[in-house]
Every structure is written in structure tokens, then in C-alpha cells.
């Protein structure tokens, strides 16, 4: 798994991946006006506060869209193609749409689900699959 394309984690992203290691999907939320924002950033665009906290979500949402990439691709993804990438609208805030992969269980490759079996609007739930000590990747299963 060392050849996976891993995210570089900057200051803005650190709390997300800390929560991920605990199996929690947390979203940056303004301490002043209580609105969630994504991707994480220093300032709330609605009230301009720079004070934020990371609120625990239920980790549930619905499939908003999906794609099935085919080659040419980066080498890490060539053997997996075609595979499934989904966009998930989060229940707590529909304007937050996580990009991720739909699987059956921990350890699954991202090509285990037949794309013809999925539909926009299906309910999904997150879990976190450890890739290494630092990165636990969010993956989604149908509920």
C-alpha cells in the first residue's frame, strides 16, 4: 500500500486527519456563527471569524454523483481501473460533498463495487481504513 497517492497534510487539514485516526468524521465549524465550512481554511467566509472548532458528524450522507475512471491514469491507479469514485453529500450540511470511494468493508480495493449497482441518492456511511500510522483513509459503505 506504500505506493498509494497520499494526501500531504498541512496545518489546515491536520485536525481532520487527527479525528480520522479516532474513526471520527469531523468538520471545521465557525465558533462565532456555527456554520460548517469545507475545505478547511483560516477564516469563516460568512462572519470573518478566525476561531473554529471541529464538530463531530454522524458520518452519514447520500451519493450526489459518481465517476468511473479508465486509463490513462497515474501508475498507482492503473491496475485498479476501472474503479469507482463517489461524491457524498453530508447529512449535516448538503453543500459539503466529500469525494471518496465506495467499498464493502475494511481493506477493500476501490474497485470492488460494480458501478451499475449504485444510484445517486443512495445512503452511505463513513469508516476509516488505516493506510499507515498517520493516514486513515475515509471510505464509504451503503447503509
Amino acid at each position, binding site marked *: 500500500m506504500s505506493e498509494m497517492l497520499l494526501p500531504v497534510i498541512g496545518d489546515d487539514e491536520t485536525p481532520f486527519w487527527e479525528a480520522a485516526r479516532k474513526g471520527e468524521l469531523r468538520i471545521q465549524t465557525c465558533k462565532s456563527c456555527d456554520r460548517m465550512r469545507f475545505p478547511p481554511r483560516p477564516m469563516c467566509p460568512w462572519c470573518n471569524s478566525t476561531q473554529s472548532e471541529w464538530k463531530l458528524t454522524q458520518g452519514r450522507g447520500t451519493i450526489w454523483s459518481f*465517476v*468511473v*475512471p*479508465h486509463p490513462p491514469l497515474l501508475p498507482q491507479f492503473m491496475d485498479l481501473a476501472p474503479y469507482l*469514485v463517489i461524491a457524498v453529500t453530508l447529512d449535516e450540511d448538503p*453543500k459539503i460533498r466529500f469525494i471518496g470511494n465506495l467499498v464493502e468493508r475494511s481493506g477493500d480495493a476501490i474497485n470492488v463495487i460494480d458501478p451499475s449497482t449504485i444510484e445517486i441518492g443512495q445512503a452511505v456511511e463513513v469508516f476509516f481504513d488505516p493506510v499507515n500510522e498517520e493516514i486513515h483513509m475515509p471510505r464509504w459503505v451503503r447503509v
Partner: protein
Amino acid sequence: MLKDATAIVGIAESPFAKKLEASECQLASEVIIAALEDAGIQPAEVDGMASYTMENTSEVDIAKNIGAGDMSFFAQVGYGGGAGPGVVGLLAMAVATGQCEVGVAWRSRKRGSGGRPWAGAQQASASGCWTRPFGLLRPADEIAMLTRRYMHQYGATREHLCNVATSVRKHANNNPKAIMYSRKMSRDDYMNARWISEPLCLFDNCLETDGALACVVVSAERAKDCPHPAVYIHSVAQGLPPQHQTMTNYWNDDPLRGPAWACADALYRNSDIQPKDVKVAQLYDAFSPLIILSLEGYGFCERGEGADFTNDGGIELGGRLPVNTSGGGLSEAYVHGFNLINEGVRQMRGTSCNQVEDADSCLVTAGEGVPTSAVILRR
């Protein structure tokens, strides 16, 4: 006011091919010289330059090659394929406000033989960290996500995407300079093409091209002395809506209402020419669905009606609004949309290979899906 204060008086372009031998700097220098010849202006008179931030050739190198004089204005516009008309707009503003008198804009790019930008990065930093680790790697994947949603939301199908690809191809089949000049495309060809990122197939993707183009901008007054009829820059605008994310525009209230809408508001606000008056358009087409979204964003139909607008030859010569009359990025050449600018100028000069007879204005747009720009040209 910028309206009609400046004009494009010279255009030129290199051959288009999968691979050209000359360097990007040589190609850029050659097309700028050719555009100046087209305008009847000496290289030493060039005192303004505008280009894309993704352009590899610098003002310093170009000025040394073409033999420019004292330069008093040089600037760039960002966001890849969003830049084109914005670059022309920079020159229009600079000329209209006296910052320079003869401005050149250009794009020189060996995208055909020079490799794919997305193939380089082995880690997913910055904005890519929320998409690339999950296999959403390429611009095609990022736009495919919006396309699938569009199809679901509005009932569009691959037949509509096929309309776009085959309509633009027909235009290229009349353009001897187009890479796809001699390659006809049937609906079966489209439907049987290999996938790139479902729901997008090979023919929903632009070409991979080596090529260079340039244009020359001067004041409307000076344009009267140039050999070709002046093509006036009637209105020009950029567009960046709230909470936009470049290419991966998934984190706002309405991802299918992208930068085109913001750009169109500003464009038409300063324009005597409104959507109902436009009889030909060059709409940025790195991917076929961008034409459908742009038809909506620039006011040629309502939200969700862009797909049906392409039915029955709607965007072909003789249709409701002929689009990309030289073949566009899908079938002429993909040089970050600069070929759309030059084709807009040819339509206004009356020299297009697919001339729209009664066209007295032409809309040229940059990429929907990135911070964008657009210009209305008029005779």
C-alpha cells in the same frame, strides 16, 4: 468605459499538430511576428504584452526575440483555460487607459508532445488533497463528476454530449487547419468510443495539441489605419463566484452554476449586445459538457435546457447558435482556448471557413469550471 474603445487588428497561428519540432519560444515569436504583419505594425512598436500564468515563454524572452522597444505594460491572467479572453481584456484596459499603445497577447503550448500536467504529481497537496487520493486525478474526472450530476438533475443523456462532439467535429471538417479536418465522426463513432471517465468518453475530451496563437490590440482610432476591418472589443469580463473551487467545484450551494454565470453578469452589464443578439459563439470546450453549461451560463437558454439546445443541429452552422465554428478544442486544436479568440475575429472579418452570414457580434468564452473570462467582439 471600455466599450468599443479598442480593437483586435491582427491575428496569427502556427500549424496545429500532435507534435511540432520548434520550441514554444520559437512558435510564440513566429506567431507574434505574423500577427503584427497581419496588423501592419512593426515589432518595435509593441509596448504591451499579456499572457497566461501557465505560459512558459516570458515577456523578457519574447521581447528579445521579436525586437520589441520599450515595454510599458506586461501582465498575466491565471487559472489555465480560464484566462484567454481575460488576457485580451488586460490589453484592452491597458490600451484604453494609455498604459500602452500596441499590445500583443499569445499562448504557445506543446501540450501534445510535452506531457500531461496531471501525470506529474505523486502526492496530493493543497486543493488536490480532498480529491486526488481517492482517484479523482485528471481534469476529465473532475468534470465527469459534475456531468453525471447534471445528467441526473436535468435528464440529459449521452445523446446530448454526442450532439456537442459531432456538431463541433462537422465544423472542423470544413477547416483545413483543424487537426480533425479529414476525420469525420458519426454518432456510432461517438457511442463506441472508449471511456476516459464515465460518463465521459474519448470524444468528450479535447485534443492534445502543439500550437501557438497571437493577437494584436490597439485603440479604435489606430485600428482605422490597419489593413483589416477592426474587430472591436465591445465588452470583456472575468468571473469568480462565491465559494468556488477550481475544477473541483463541489463545496457550495449549487455546483452546476459555475463561474460562467458570474462572468456573464459582468459581461452583459457593460454591453449593448445581449444574448438574443449574439448569432455565433466560441465556447470553451476542454470537455463537451462545458459547452452545455456555457449555453446556460451565458444566457442562451434557461438552467437545465443547455442539453436540449444542442438537439437538431442547434449549435451547428445554420442552427440556433453556431458554436465553435473552427472546430474548437474538441476538433480543431487545444491551445487553452486561444484558437476560439482568433476564430471569433475571423467571424467578424467574414473570413471563417464556417462563416455565419449575418453575424455582427461574437461571444468568446474561457473555461467553465475555473475562474473564467469572456469577451464580446463586434464588427
